[in-house]
Protein backbone atom coordinates (compact mmCIF):
# COMPACT_ATOMS: atom_id res chain seq x y z
CA UNK A 1 0.00 0.00 0.00
CA UNK A 2 1.15 3.54 -0.70
CA UNK A 3 -0.35 6.99 -0.23
CA UNK A 4 0.05 10.08 -2.43
CA UNK A 5 -0.74 13.64 -1.35
CA UNK A 6 -2.76 15.73 -3.82
CA UNK A 7 -3.66 18.52 -1.38
CA UNK A 8 -1.93 19.22 1.94
CA UNK A 9 -3.30 22.63 2.86
CA UNK A 10 -5.95 23.48 5.44
CA UNK A 11 -8.85 25.96 5.25
CA UNK A 12 -8.62 27.26 1.68
CA UNK A 13 -6.42 26.98 -1.40
CA UNK A 14 -3.44 29.34 -1.50
CA UNK A 15 -1.95 29.98 -4.94
CA UNK A 16 1.20 32.02 -5.38
CA UNK A 17 4.95 32.08 -5.25
CA UNK A 18 5.04 31.27 -1.50
CA UNK A 19 3.40 27.84 -1.89
CA UNK A 20 4.98 26.47 -5.05
CA UNK A 21 6.96 23.69 -3.37
CA UNK A 22 4.59 22.39 -0.66
CA UNK A 23 1.50 23.16 -2.71
CA UNK A 24 -1.57 25.31 -2.27
CA UNK A 25 -4.46 22.85 -2.66
CA UNK A 26 -6.58 21.54 0.21
CA UNK A 27 -6.89 18.06 1.74
CA UNK A 28 -6.87 15.05 -0.56
CA UNK A 29 -4.89 11.81 -0.29
CA UNK A 30 -4.88 8.91 -2.76
CA UNK A 31 -4.36 5.39 -1.43
CA UNK A 32 -3.19 2.51 -3.64
CA UNK A 33 -3.00 -1.14 -2.67
CA UNK A 34 -0.19 -3.33 -4.00
CA UNK A 35 -2.72 -4.79 -6.46
CA UNK A 36 -3.66 -1.30 -7.68
CA UNK A 37 -7.00 -0.84 -5.89
CA UNK A 38 -7.62 2.81 -5.02
CA UNK A 39 -9.24 4.76 -2.26
CA UNK A 40 -9.48 8.52 -1.85
CA UNK A 41 -9.39 10.24 1.53
CA UNK A 42 -11.00 13.68 1.59
CA UNK A 43 -12.23 15.65 -1.38
CA UNK A 44 -10.50 19.01 -0.97
CA UNK A 45 -9.29 21.02 -3.94
CA UNK A 46 -6.40 18.58 -4.50
CA UNK A 47 -9.03 16.22 -5.87
CA UNK A 48 -9.22 18.13 -9.17
CA UNK A 49 -5.68 17.22 -10.22
CA UNK A 50 -6.15 13.67 -8.91
CA UNK A 51 -9.28 13.27 -11.04
CA UNK A 52 -7.51 14.52 -14.14
CA UNK A 53 -4.71 12.01 -13.56
CA UNK A 54 -7.15 9.14 -12.97
CA UNK A 55 -8.94 9.98 -16.23
CA UNK A 56 -5.65 10.10 -18.16
CA UNK A 57 -4.48 6.72 -16.87
CA UNK A 58 -7.92 5.09 -16.71
CA UNK A 59 -9.43 2.69 -19.20
CA UNK A 60 -13.06 3.79 -19.16
CA UNK A 61 -15.36 4.43 -16.21
CA UNK A 62 -14.24 3.17 -12.80
CA UNK A 63 -15.61 2.82 -9.28
CA UNK A 64 -14.20 5.12 -6.61
CA UNK A 65 -14.53 5.12 -2.84
CA UNK A 66 -14.08 8.41 -1.03
CA UNK A 67 -13.68 8.63 2.76
CA UNK A 68 -14.50 12.06 4.15
CA UNK A 69 -13.19 13.18 7.52
CA UNK A 70 -15.98 15.77 7.64
CA UNK A 71 -17.70 18.10 5.21
CA UNK A 72 -16.11 21.48 5.87
CA UNK A 73 -15.48 23.23 2.54
CA UNK A 74 -11.75 22.54 2.45
CA UNK A 75 -12.48 18.81 2.55
CA UNK A 76 -15.23 18.66 -0.10
CA UNK A 77 -14.63 21.53 -2.50
CA UNK A 78 -12.80 19.36 -5.03
CA UNK A 79 -15.72 17.01 -5.56
CA UNK A 80 -17.54 19.10 -8.22
CA UNK A 81 -14.22 19.36 -10.10
CA UNK A 82 -13.43 15.62 -10.04
CA UNK A 83 -13.49 14.99 -13.78
CA UNK A 84 -14.26 11.21 -13.68
CA UNK A 85 -17.67 12.19 -12.23
CA UNK A 86 -18.60 13.57 -15.65
CA UNK A 87 -17.96 10.23 -17.37
CA UNK A 88 -21.08 8.05 -17.66
CA UNK A 89 -20.62 4.71 -15.94
CA UNK A 90 -18.39 6.10 -13.17
CA UNK A 91 -19.47 5.07 -9.67
CA UNK A 92 -18.56 7.13 -6.63
CA UNK A 93 -19.27 5.88 -3.10
CA UNK A 94 -18.91 8.52 -0.43
CA UNK A 95 -18.36 7.48 3.17
CA UNK A 96 -18.78 10.25 5.70
CA UNK A 97 -19.80 11.28 9.15
CA UNK A 98 -23.12 13.07 9.16
CA UNK A 99 -22.80 16.31 11.12
CA UNK A 100 -25.40 18.99 11.74
CA UNK A 101 -27.80 17.71 9.07
CA UNK A 102 -30.46 15.06 8.52
CA UNK A 103 -28.96 13.11 5.68
CA UNK A 104 -25.67 12.85 3.87
CA UNK A 105 -26.88 13.09 0.28
CA UNK A 106 -28.47 16.48 1.00
CA UNK A 107 -25.24 17.79 2.47
CA UNK A 108 -23.04 16.58 -0.37
CA UNK A 109 -25.63 17.54 -2.98
CA UNK A 110 -25.88 20.92 -1.28
CA UNK A 111 -22.42 21.96 -2.45
CA UNK A 112 -23.65 21.90 -6.05
CA UNK A 113 -26.95 23.66 -5.41
CA UNK A 114 -27.94 26.00 -8.21
CA UNK A 115 -26.68 29.12 -6.46
CA UNK A 116 -23.22 27.59 -5.79
CA UNK A 117 -22.35 25.55 -8.89
CA UNK A 118 -23.69 25.25 -12.44
CA UNK A 119 -24.05 21.45 -12.51
CA UNK A 120 -26.27 19.92 -9.78
CA UNK A 121 -25.40 16.50 -8.37
CA UNK A 122 -28.48 14.96 -10.03
CA UNK A 123 -27.23 16.03 -13.45
CA UNK A 124 -23.74 14.56 -13.00
CA UNK A 125 -23.39 11.37 -15.09
CA UNK A 126 -21.61 9.40 -12.34
CA UNK A 127 -23.72 7.25 -10.06
CA UNK A 128 -23.34 8.24 -6.41
CA UNK A 129 -23.79 6.20 -3.24
CA UNK A 130 -23.71 7.62 0.27
CA UNK A 131 -22.66 5.69 3.35
CA UNK A 132 -22.79 7.11 6.83
CA UNK A 133 -19.74 6.45 8.96
CA UNK A 134 -19.74 6.13 12.74
CA UNK A 135 -16.77 6.12 15.08
CA UNK A 136 -15.89 2.56 16.07
CA UNK A 137 -18.05 0.89 13.41
CA UNK A 138 -15.51 -0.82 11.16
CA UNK A 139 -16.18 -1.65 7.52
CA UNK A 140 -14.54 -3.04 4.41
CA UNK A 141 -14.11 -1.44 1.02
CA UNK A 142 -13.59 -3.28 -2.27
CA UNK A 143 -9.92 -3.76 -3.05
CA UNK A 144 -9.03 -5.26 0.32
CA UNK A 145 -9.25 -2.14 2.49
CA UNK A 146 -10.39 -2.45 6.10
CA UNK A 147 -11.47 0.83 7.64
CA UNK A 148 -11.62 1.78 11.32
CA UNK A 149 -13.33 5.15 11.91
CA UNK A 150 -12.05 7.14 14.90
CA UNK A 151 -13.81 10.09 16.60
CA UNK A 152 -11.83 13.37 16.48
CA UNK A 153 -12.14 16.67 18.31
CA UNK A 154 -13.32 19.21 15.74
CA UNK A 155 -16.23 21.69 15.53
CA UNK A 156 -19.41 19.63 14.95
CA UNK A 157 -17.32 16.46 14.76
CA UNK A 158 -14.84 14.81 12.41
CA UNK A 159 -13.66 11.26 11.82
CA UNK A 160 -10.14 9.92 11.49
CA UNK A 161 -9.49 6.62 9.75
CA UNK A 162 -7.18 3.71 10.39
CA UNK A 163 -6.78 2.09 6.98
CA UNK A 164 -5.50 -1.46 6.68
CA UNK A 165 -4.50 -3.25 3.49
CA UNK A 166 -1.77 -5.60 2.27
CA UNK A 167 -0.98 -6.52 5.88
CA UNK A 168 -0.06 -2.90 6.68
CA UNK A 169 -1.83 0.01 8.32
CA UNK A 170 -1.71 3.80 8.29
CA UNK A 171 -4.03 6.38 9.77
CA UNK A 172 -5.50 9.69 8.67
CA UNK A 173 -6.04 12.01 11.63
CA UNK A 174 -7.54 15.27 10.36
CA UNK A 175 -9.06 17.55 11.39
CA UNK A 176 -8.57 17.51 15.12
CA UNK A 177 -7.77 19.71 18.06
CA UNK A 178 -5.77 18.22 20.94
CA UNK A 179 -7.68 16.63 23.80
CA UNK A 180 -7.02 18.86 26.78
CA UNK A 181 -8.16 22.47 26.48
CA UNK A 182 -11.30 22.52 24.30
CA UNK A 183 -14.06 19.99 23.68
CA UNK A 184 -15.79 20.64 20.38
CA UNK A 185 -19.52 20.13 20.41
CA UNK A 186 -22.48 21.05 18.24
CA UNK A 187 -22.24 24.81 18.57
CA UNK A 188 -20.07 27.74 17.53
CA UNK A 189 -17.15 28.53 19.83
CA UNK A 190 -16.09 32.18 19.90
CA UNK A 191 -13.33 31.09 22.27
CA UNK A 192 -12.41 28.28 24.67
CA UNK A 193 -15.24 27.37 27.09
CA UNK A 194 -14.70 26.11 30.63
CA UNK A 195 -14.62 22.30 30.72
CA UNK A 196 -17.05 20.37 32.94
CA UNK A 197 -15.91 17.13 34.53
CA UNK A 198 -17.95 15.28 31.91
CA UNK A 199 -16.17 17.23 29.17
CA UNK A 200 -12.83 16.22 30.63
CA UNK A 201 -13.93 12.59 30.70
CA UNK A 202 -15.13 12.82 27.10
CA UNK A 203 -11.81 14.29 25.98
CA UNK A 204 -9.87 11.63 27.86
CA UNK A 205 -11.95 8.86 26.31
CA UNK A 206 -11.52 10.30 22.81
CA UNK A 207 -7.78 10.57 23.25
CA UNK A 208 -7.51 7.07 24.68
CA UNK A 209 -9.50 5.58 21.78
CA UNK A 210 -7.36 7.46 19.24
CA UNK A 211 -4.10 6.21 20.78
CA UNK A 212 -5.48 2.67 20.89
CA UNK A 213 -6.56 2.77 17.23
CA UNK A 214 -3.18 4.16 16.16
CA UNK A 215 -1.32 1.45 18.08
CA UNK A 216 1.38 0.01 15.88
CA UNK A 217 0.42 1.62 12.58
CA UNK A 218 3.28 2.37 10.23
CA UNK A 219 2.36 5.94 9.33
CA UNK A 220 0.07 8.58 10.80
CA UNK A 221 -0.98 11.60 8.73
CA UNK A 222 -1.96 14.24 11.30
CA UNK A 223 -3.57 17.67 11.29
CA UNK A 224 -0.66 19.92 12.34
CA UNK A 225 -2.17 23.16 11.08
CA UNK A 226 -0.72 25.42 13.75
CA UNK A 227 2.65 26.35 15.15
CA UNK A 228 2.70 26.44 18.95
CA UNK A 229 2.31 30.25 18.93
CA UNK A 230 -0.60 30.16 16.53
CA UNK A 231 -2.31 27.47 18.60
CA UNK A 232 -2.16 29.69 21.69
CA UNK A 233 -4.15 32.35 19.82
CA UNK A 234 -6.67 29.95 18.28
CA UNK A 235 -7.09 26.91 20.58
CA UNK A 236 -10.80 26.77 19.69
CA UNK A 237 -10.30 26.42 15.91
CA UNK A 238 -10.12 22.63 16.02
CA UNK A 239 -6.55 22.05 14.87
CA UNK A 240 -3.32 20.72 16.39
CA UNK A 241 0.40 21.43 16.38
CA UNK A 242 3.25 19.09 15.40
CA UNK A 243 4.19 18.71 19.10
CA UNK A 244 0.68 17.57 19.98
CA UNK A 245 0.73 15.07 17.08
CA UNK A 246 4.15 13.79 18.09
CA UNK A 247 2.96 13.20 21.65
CA UNK A 248 0.10 11.00 20.42
CA UNK A 249 2.39 9.14 18.02
CA UNK A 250 4.96 8.42 20.75
CA UNK A 251 2.25 6.92 22.95
CA UNK A 252 0.86 4.84 20.09
CA UNK A 253 4.38 3.72 19.11
CA UNK A 254 3.96 4.52 15.45
CA UNK A 255 6.94 4.48 13.10
CA UNK A 256 6.29 7.60 11.08
CA UNK A 257 4.37 10.87 11.43
CA UNK A 258 3.43 12.97 8.42
CA UNK A 259 2.65 16.64 9.11
CA UNK A 260 -0.44 17.67 7.15
CA UNK A 261 -3.19 20.30 6.76
CA UNK A 262 -0.72 23.16 6.75
CA UNK A 263 -2.08 26.60 7.65
CA UNK A 264 -2.77 28.62 4.50
CA UNK A 265 -0.44 31.37 5.70
CA UNK A 266 2.61 29.12 6.01
CA UNK A 267 5.08 29.86 3.21
CA UNK A 268 7.46 27.30 1.74
CA UNK A 269 10.27 28.82 3.84
CA UNK A 270 8.26 28.43 7.04
CA UNK A 271 7.38 24.86 6.06
CA UNK A 272 11.09 24.12 5.45
CA UNK A 273 11.81 25.31 8.96
CA UNK A 274 8.97 23.27 10.48
CA UNK A 275 10.09 20.21 8.49
CA UNK A 276 13.68 20.52 9.73
CA UNK A 277 12.68 21.20 13.34
CA UNK A 278 10.36 18.21 13.57
CA UNK A 279 12.62 15.84 11.68
CA UNK A 280 15.08 16.46 14.51
CA UNK A 281 12.45 16.33 17.28
CA UNK A 282 11.13 13.07 15.83
CA UNK A 283 14.58 11.52 15.65
CA UNK A 284 15.03 12.26 19.34
CA UNK A 285 12.00 10.08 20.14
CA UNK A 286 12.49 7.45 17.45
CA UNK A 287 9.81 8.64 15.03
CA UNK A 288 10.44 9.59 11.44
CA UNK A 289 8.67 12.91 10.84
CA UNK A 290 7.92 13.86 7.24
CA UNK A 291 6.24 17.06 6.11
CA UNK A 292 3.72 16.46 3.36
CA UNK A 293 3.84 18.32 0.05
CA UNK A 294 1.75 17.95 -3.08
CA UNK A 295 2.96 15.00 -5.09
CA UNK A 296 4.67 13.23 -2.18
CA UNK A 297 4.23 9.45 -2.17
CA UNK A 298 4.83 7.46 1.01
CA UNK A 299 5.07 3.66 0.95
CA UNK A 300 3.29 2.10 3.94
CA UNK A 301 5.42 -0.56 5.62
CA UNK A 302 4.15 -3.73 7.22
CA UNK A 303 2.65 -3.17 10.66
CA UNK A 304 4.76 -4.31 13.57
Amino acid at each position, binding site marked *: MQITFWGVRGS*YPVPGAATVRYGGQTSCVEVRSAAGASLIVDAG*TGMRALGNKLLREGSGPQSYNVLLS*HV*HWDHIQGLPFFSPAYLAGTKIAIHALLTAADELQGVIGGITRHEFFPVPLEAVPAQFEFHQVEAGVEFDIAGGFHIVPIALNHPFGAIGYRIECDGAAWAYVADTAPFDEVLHKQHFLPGPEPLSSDDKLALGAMREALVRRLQGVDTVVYDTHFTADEYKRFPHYGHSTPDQALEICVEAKVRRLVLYHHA*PGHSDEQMDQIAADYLAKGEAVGIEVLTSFEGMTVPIGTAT
Partner: protein
Amino acid sequence: MKIRFWGVRGSFAMSGRDFLRYGGNTTSVELVTDDGHRLLIDLGTGATELAKALMGAEFGKGAGRLPILLSHTHLDHIQGLPFFTPFFIKGNEIRILGANPISGLSLEATLQNQLAPHYSPLNGLENLAAGVSIETIQAGSTLSLPGFEVVTQAMPHGSMWTTAYRITADGKTVTYLSDVEYPNADEPSAEAVALAQDADLLIHDAMHSDQDYPSRRGWGHSPAHAGVVVAERARAKKLALFHHSPDATDAMIDEVVALTASHTAVPVFAAAEGSYLDV
Protein backbone atom coordinates in the same frame (compact mmCIF):
# COMPACT_ATOMS: atom_id res chain seq x y z
CA MET B 1 -9.37 55.84 -9.08
CA LYS B 2 -7.02 52.91 -8.71
CA ILE B 3 -7.74 49.25 -9.25
CA ARG B 4 -6.06 46.11 -7.96
CA PHE B 5 -6.78 42.58 -9.06
CA TRP B 6 -6.50 40.21 -6.08
CA GLY B 7 -7.97 37.25 -7.92
CA VAL B 8 -8.42 36.80 -11.68
CA ARG B 9 -9.01 33.07 -11.99
CA GLY B 10 -12.36 31.50 -12.81
CA SER B 11 -13.94 28.38 -11.32
CA PHE B 12 -11.04 27.05 -9.31
CA ALA B 13 -8.00 28.41 -7.47
CA MET B 14 -4.81 27.19 -9.17
CA SER B 15 -1.54 26.93 -7.29
CA GLY B 16 1.85 26.06 -8.74
CA ARG B 17 4.56 27.39 -11.01
CA ASP B 18 2.42 27.61 -14.13
CA PHE B 19 0.12 30.24 -12.62
CA LEU B 20 2.52 32.67 -10.93
CA ARG B 21 2.50 35.64 -13.31
CA TYR B 22 -1.26 36.04 -13.75
CA GLY B 23 -2.10 34.46 -10.41
CA GLY B 24 -4.21 31.51 -9.31
CA ASN B 25 -6.68 33.09 -6.91
CA THR B 26 -10.36 33.22 -7.81
CA THR B 27 -12.06 36.51 -8.50
CA SER B 28 -11.73 39.57 -6.31
CA VAL B 29 -11.15 43.13 -7.49
CA GLU B 30 -10.53 46.22 -5.34
CA LEU B 31 -11.25 49.80 -6.38
CA VAL B 32 -9.94 52.79 -4.42
CA THR B 33 -10.86 56.42 -5.04
CA ASP B 34 -8.36 59.26 -4.85
CA ASP B 35 -9.66 60.21 -1.41
CA GLY B 36 -9.46 56.66 -0.08
CA HIS B 37 -12.97 55.22 -0.50
CA ARG B 38 -12.76 51.52 -1.16
CA LEU B 39 -15.02 49.04 -2.94
CA LEU B 40 -14.55 45.32 -3.46
CA ILE B 41 -16.09 43.22 -6.21
CA ASP B 42 -16.49 39.51 -5.46
CA LEU B 43 -15.13 37.40 -2.62
CA GLY B 44 -13.09 34.69 -4.32
CA THR B 45 -9.90 33.41 -2.71
CA GLY B 46 -8.12 36.59 -3.82
CA ALA B 47 -10.04 38.44 -1.11
CA THR B 48 -8.06 36.56 1.56
CA GLU B 49 -4.89 38.27 0.33
CA LEU B 50 -6.52 41.69 0.40
CA ALA B 51 -7.74 40.85 3.91
CA LYS B 52 -4.15 40.56 5.14
CA ALA B 53 -3.40 44.05 3.82
CA LEU B 54 -6.59 45.51 5.31
CA MET B 55 -5.91 44.02 8.74
CA GLY B 56 -2.67 46.00 8.92
CA ALA B 57 -4.69 49.23 8.88
CA GLU B 58 -8.11 50.36 10.17
CA PHE B 59 -9.77 46.95 9.70
CA GLY B 60 -7.38 45.45 12.24
CA LYS B 61 -8.60 48.04 14.76
CA GLY B 62 -12.30 47.51 14.07
CA ALA B 63 -12.70 50.82 12.29
CA GLY B 64 -12.97 49.60 8.70
CA ARG B 65 -15.87 50.32 6.34
CA LEU B 66 -16.24 48.31 3.16
CA PRO B 67 -18.98 47.69 0.61
CA ILE B 68 -18.64 44.45 -1.36
CA LEU B 69 -20.50 43.89 -4.63
CA LEU B 70 -21.16 40.26 -5.57
CA SER B 71 -21.62 39.39 -9.23
CA HIS B 72 -23.34 36.13 -8.20
CA THR B 73 -22.97 33.34 -5.64
CA HIS B 74 -21.15 30.60 -7.52
CA LEU B 75 -18.52 29.32 -5.13
CA ASP B 76 -15.51 30.81 -6.92
CA HIS B 77 -16.98 34.25 -6.21
CA ILE B 78 -17.73 33.72 -2.51
CA GLN B 79 -15.28 31.06 -1.29
CA GLY B 80 -13.09 33.71 0.34
CA LEU B 81 -15.94 34.91 2.57
CA PRO B 82 -15.30 32.60 5.56
CA PHE B 83 -11.62 33.58 5.51
CA PHE B 84 -11.97 37.33 4.99
CA THR B 85 -10.51 38.28 8.36
CA PRO B 86 -12.04 41.79 8.66
CA PHE B 87 -15.32 39.92 9.33
CA PHE B 88 -13.81 38.65 12.58
CA ILE B 89 -13.08 42.07 14.09
CA LYS B 90 -15.79 43.79 16.07
CA GLY B 91 -16.45 47.34 14.94
CA ASN B 92 -15.82 46.83 11.23
CA GLU B 93 -18.89 47.57 9.12
CA ILE B 94 -19.09 45.49 5.98
CA ARG B 95 -21.92 45.57 3.46
CA ILE B 96 -22.44 42.70 1.03
CA LEU B 97 -24.56 43.77 -1.93
CA GLY B 98 -25.87 41.47 -4.63
CA ALA B 99 -28.93 40.17 -6.40
CA ASN B 100 -30.87 37.16 -5.16
CA PRO B 101 -29.83 33.98 -6.97
CA ILE B 102 -32.48 32.91 -9.45
CA SER B 103 -33.08 29.66 -7.55
CA GLY B 104 -35.56 31.43 -5.30
CA LEU B 105 -33.29 31.53 -2.28
CA SER B 106 -32.44 34.98 -1.03
CA LEU B 107 -28.86 36.24 -1.10
CA GLU B 108 -28.78 36.12 2.68
CA ALA B 109 -30.11 32.54 2.86
CA THR B 110 -27.50 31.51 0.28
CA LEU B 111 -24.63 32.96 2.30
CA GLN B 112 -26.09 31.44 5.47
CA ASN B 113 -26.09 28.12 3.69
CA GLN B 114 -22.41 28.59 2.81
CA LEU B 115 -21.71 29.02 6.53
CA ALA B 116 -24.03 26.21 7.67
CA PRO B 117 -22.48 24.16 10.47
CA HIS B 118 -21.74 21.11 8.33
CA TYR B 119 -19.77 23.26 5.86
CA SER B 120 -18.15 25.85 8.13
CA PRO B 121 -17.32 26.13 11.82
CA LEU B 122 -18.54 29.74 11.67
CA ASN B 123 -22.08 28.38 11.79
CA GLY B 124 -23.84 31.41 10.36
CA LEU B 125 -23.37 35.06 9.49
CA GLU B 126 -24.52 36.04 12.99
CA ASN B 127 -21.25 34.70 14.38
CA LEU B 128 -19.16 37.16 12.39
CA ALA B 129 -17.96 39.74 14.90
CA ALA B 130 -18.06 42.64 12.45
CA GLY B 131 -21.27 44.42 11.58
CA VAL B 132 -22.36 42.68 8.38
CA SER B 133 -25.35 43.74 6.32
CA ILE B 134 -26.60 41.68 3.41
CA GLU B 135 -28.31 44.01 0.95
CA THR B 136 -30.33 42.62 -1.91
CA ILE B 137 -30.14 44.70 -5.05
CA GLN B 138 -32.47 44.68 -8.04
CA ALA B 139 -30.28 44.30 -11.09
CA GLY B 140 -30.97 47.34 -13.27
CA SER B 141 -31.00 49.75 -10.36
CA THR B 142 -28.31 52.27 -9.56
CA LEU B 143 -26.46 52.45 -6.26
CA SER B 144 -24.77 55.30 -4.50
CA LEU B 145 -21.91 54.03 -2.36
CA PRO B 146 -19.49 56.32 -0.52
CA GLY B 147 -17.22 57.62 -3.26
CA PHE B 148 -18.73 55.51 -6.05
CA GLU B 149 -21.75 55.61 -8.37
CA VAL B 150 -22.76 52.14 -9.54
CA VAL B 151 -25.06 51.06 -12.35
CA THR B 152 -26.14 47.40 -12.19
CA GLN B 153 -27.28 45.12 -14.99
CA ALA B 154 -28.42 41.47 -15.08
CA MET B 155 -26.52 39.33 -17.59
CA PRO B 156 -27.06 35.72 -18.69
CA HIS B 157 -24.61 33.26 -17.15
CA GLY B 158 -25.49 29.75 -18.29
CA SER B 159 -28.33 28.50 -16.14
CA MET B 160 -28.33 31.57 -13.87
CA TRP B 161 -27.88 35.32 -13.98
CA THR B 162 -24.95 37.39 -12.94
CA THR B 163 -24.92 41.08 -12.07
CA ALA B 164 -22.58 43.28 -14.11
CA TYR B 165 -21.46 46.63 -12.73
CA ARG B 166 -20.55 50.02 -14.17
CA ILE B 167 -18.65 51.89 -11.46
CA THR B 168 -17.77 55.55 -11.67
CA ALA B 169 -15.50 57.54 -9.34
CA ASP B 170 -13.09 60.47 -9.77
CA GLY B 171 -14.48 60.99 -13.27
CA LYS B 172 -13.34 57.50 -14.36
CA THR B 173 -15.45 54.46 -15.15
CA VAL B 174 -14.75 50.75 -14.75
CA THR B 175 -17.19 48.17 -16.15
CA TYR B 176 -17.17 44.65 -14.68
CA LEU B 177 -18.68 42.07 -17.02
CA SER B 178 -17.54 38.77 -15.56
CA ASP B 179 -19.31 35.42 -15.85
CA VAL B 180 -21.35 36.35 -18.89
CA GLU B 181 -22.17 34.45 -22.04
CA TYR B 182 -24.15 36.15 -24.79
CA PRO B 183 -26.42 34.05 -26.99
CA ASN B 184 -23.99 34.97 -29.78
CA ALA B 185 -20.44 35.92 -28.77
CA ASP B 186 -20.10 38.04 -31.92
CA GLU B 187 -23.26 39.97 -31.10
CA PRO B 188 -23.09 40.99 -27.44
CA SER B 189 -26.29 42.30 -25.95
CA ALA B 190 -27.12 45.99 -26.20
CA GLU B 191 -27.24 46.09 -22.39
CA ALA B 192 -23.60 44.98 -22.18
CA VAL B 193 -22.51 47.60 -24.69
CA ALA B 194 -24.47 50.30 -22.85
CA LEU B 195 -22.91 49.32 -19.53
CA ALA B 196 -19.42 49.61 -21.02
CA GLN B 197 -20.09 52.82 -23.02
CA ASP B 198 -16.95 54.99 -23.01
CA ALA B 199 -15.60 53.12 -19.98
CA ASP B 200 -11.98 53.79 -19.12
CA LEU B 201 -11.55 50.10 -18.34
CA LEU B 202 -13.70 47.15 -19.35
CA ILE B 203 -13.10 43.97 -17.35
CA HIS B 204 -14.60 41.11 -19.35
CA ASP B 205 -15.03 37.37 -18.92
CA ALA B 206 -12.47 35.61 -21.13
CA MET B 207 -12.67 32.13 -19.64
CA HIS B 208 -12.21 30.39 -22.98
CA SER B 209 -9.74 30.90 -25.76
CA ASP B 210 -11.42 31.48 -29.11
CA GLN B 211 -10.26 28.00 -30.25
CA ASP B 212 -11.69 26.22 -27.16
CA TYR B 213 -14.99 28.08 -27.14
CA PRO B 214 -17.00 26.07 -29.72
CA SER B 215 -16.81 22.95 -27.52
CA ARG B 216 -17.73 24.94 -24.38
CA ARG B 217 -20.66 26.94 -25.63
CA GLY B 218 -23.47 27.11 -23.09
CA TRP B 219 -21.22 26.85 -20.02
CA GLY B 220 -21.96 30.47 -19.16
CA HIS B 221 -18.62 32.04 -20.12
CA SER B 222 -17.25 34.06 -23.01
CA PRO B 223 -14.44 33.50 -25.47
CA ALA B 224 -11.67 36.11 -25.44
CA HIS B 225 -12.95 37.97 -28.50
CA ALA B 226 -16.40 38.65 -26.97
CA GLY B 227 -14.87 41.33 -24.75
CA VAL B 228 -13.23 42.90 -27.81
CA VAL B 229 -16.57 43.25 -29.58
CA VAL B 230 -18.11 44.90 -26.49
CA ALA B 231 -15.10 47.20 -26.04
CA GLU B 232 -15.10 48.30 -29.68
CA ARG B 233 -18.83 48.98 -29.86
CA ALA B 234 -18.83 50.73 -26.50
CA ARG B 235 -15.64 52.68 -27.32
CA ALA B 236 -14.11 51.48 -24.08
CA LYS B 237 -10.56 52.77 -23.71
CA LYS B 238 -8.96 49.58 -22.44
CA LEU B 239 -9.91 45.91 -22.12
CA ALA B 240 -8.83 43.54 -19.33
CA LEU B 241 -9.35 39.85 -20.10
CA PHE B 242 -10.55 38.29 -16.85
CA HIS B 243 -11.80 35.08 -15.20
CA HIS B 244 -9.05 32.97 -16.77
CA SER B 245 -9.68 29.26 -17.11
CA PRO B 246 -8.06 27.09 -14.43
CA ASP B 247 -6.48 25.19 -17.31
CA ALA B 248 -4.84 28.34 -18.72
CA THR B 249 -1.17 28.51 -17.77
CA ASP B 250 0.75 31.78 -17.89
CA ALA B 251 2.09 30.84 -21.32
CA MET B 252 -1.38 30.09 -22.64
CA ILE B 253 -2.73 33.41 -21.37
CA ASP B 254 0.21 35.19 -23.06
CA GLU B 255 -0.89 33.61 -26.33
CA VAL B 256 -4.53 34.58 -25.87
CA VAL B 257 -3.55 38.19 -25.18
CA ALA B 258 -1.26 38.36 -28.22
CA LEU B 259 -3.90 36.87 -30.50
CA THR B 260 -6.71 39.01 -29.11
CA ALA B 261 -4.67 42.23 -29.29
CA SER B 262 -3.71 41.55 -32.90
CA HIS B 263 -7.33 41.89 -34.00
CA THR B 264 -8.27 45.19 -32.38
CA ALA B 265 -7.13 48.75 -31.88
CA VAL B 266 -8.39 48.68 -28.27
CA PRO B 267 -5.48 48.18 -25.86
CA VAL B 268 -5.86 44.67 -24.39
CA PHE B 269 -4.20 43.05 -21.39
CA ALA B 270 -4.88 40.04 -19.22
CA ALA B 271 -5.85 40.89 -15.66
CA ALA B 272 -3.13 39.75 -13.26
CA GLU B 273 -2.70 39.69 -9.51
CA GLY B 274 -0.24 42.34 -8.48
CA SER B 275 -0.11 46.02 -7.87
CA TYR B 276 -2.43 49.02 -7.94
CA LEU B 277 -3.08 50.37 -11.42
CA ASP B 278 -4.40 53.79 -12.37
CA VAL B 279 -7.71 53.51 -14.16
